[in-house]
């Protein structure tokens, strides 16, 4: 097993997530895309720890930060979905384009 295979796996997860968050209409599905993309970051950080800097745990800390980002993203995403659904009965991003420039 080599580093580039791990990074290609991470790139694949990130790209699938990117497709999801660009293409999906439902707010919850967009959150799923973001989670997949962050999971790619987690895999990449773990591989970097093992193959490049095994002596120091910095890359492991990046994994912890990425997992926190996932949790925060999901909590806030569901809160925003709940708020906008309650206020305007909206569950799709196409109906929530008020801030579109």
């Amino acid at each position: 097993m080599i580093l580039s295979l791990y990074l290609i796996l991470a790139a694949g997860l990130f790209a699938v997530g990117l497709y999801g968050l660009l293409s999906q209409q439902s707010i919850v599905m967009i959150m799923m895309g973001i989670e997949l993309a962050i999971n790619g970051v987690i895999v990449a950080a773990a591989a970097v720890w093992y193959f490049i800097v095994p002596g120091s745990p910095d890359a492991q800390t990046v994994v912890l930060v990425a997992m926190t980002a996932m949790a925060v993203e999901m909590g806030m995403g569901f809160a925003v979905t709940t708020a906008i659904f309650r206020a305007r009965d909206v569950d799709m991003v196409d109906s929530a384009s008020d801030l579109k420039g």
Partner: protein
Amino acid sequence: MDAIAFGVCSVGSIAAGITVFRVASMARATFALLASFVLAAVPILLLGLTYLGVLVILMMVMEMMIMVVFMLMYMMNPAGLMPMKMVHNNRVSTIVAAVVFVVLAVGATVTPWPHGGRRSNADPTKALGLDVMGPHMLVMVIIGLVLFATMVSAIVLASARGRYDRYGDDLRVRPPQDPVQGGLGGRRRGGLQR
């Protein structure tokens, strides 16, 4: 053996990730995402990061159990019984994602990555624990603050009627201004007399 496990799990993880956006049923999409996370955690376990791999699996199992409830609550097509199109801008999204994947994969392949430093014999989990309680304590403190802010703002955003809606701006309105009078606060005035 490790190579086989890595190959199977990484291909499976990406395939499950693609499945998320292809199935019509939202419950199935959530469980496909769970499968993708669990399969992606196996390569992390193979690297010897037992704690982080198990953490990813446990956290994702819990998160997807919560997510499936929200999916059924908010999705237009929860059970997937009715085929419908749920994407916009599909072509451009596919092209962008493919280009990003190719660029990242080529970059990962051709970059002359530095070779690993000295591998310490210490348990990686212990090293991580000492790190977040030592040199990287600031990171963990900020994470704690961010999580706390998230909890507060999520509740503020998601609650329908807070105390300022019920008791007025100075919290002095009695009985509370509820759409339907009831409960312990509202009945006293006039309703039930002993």
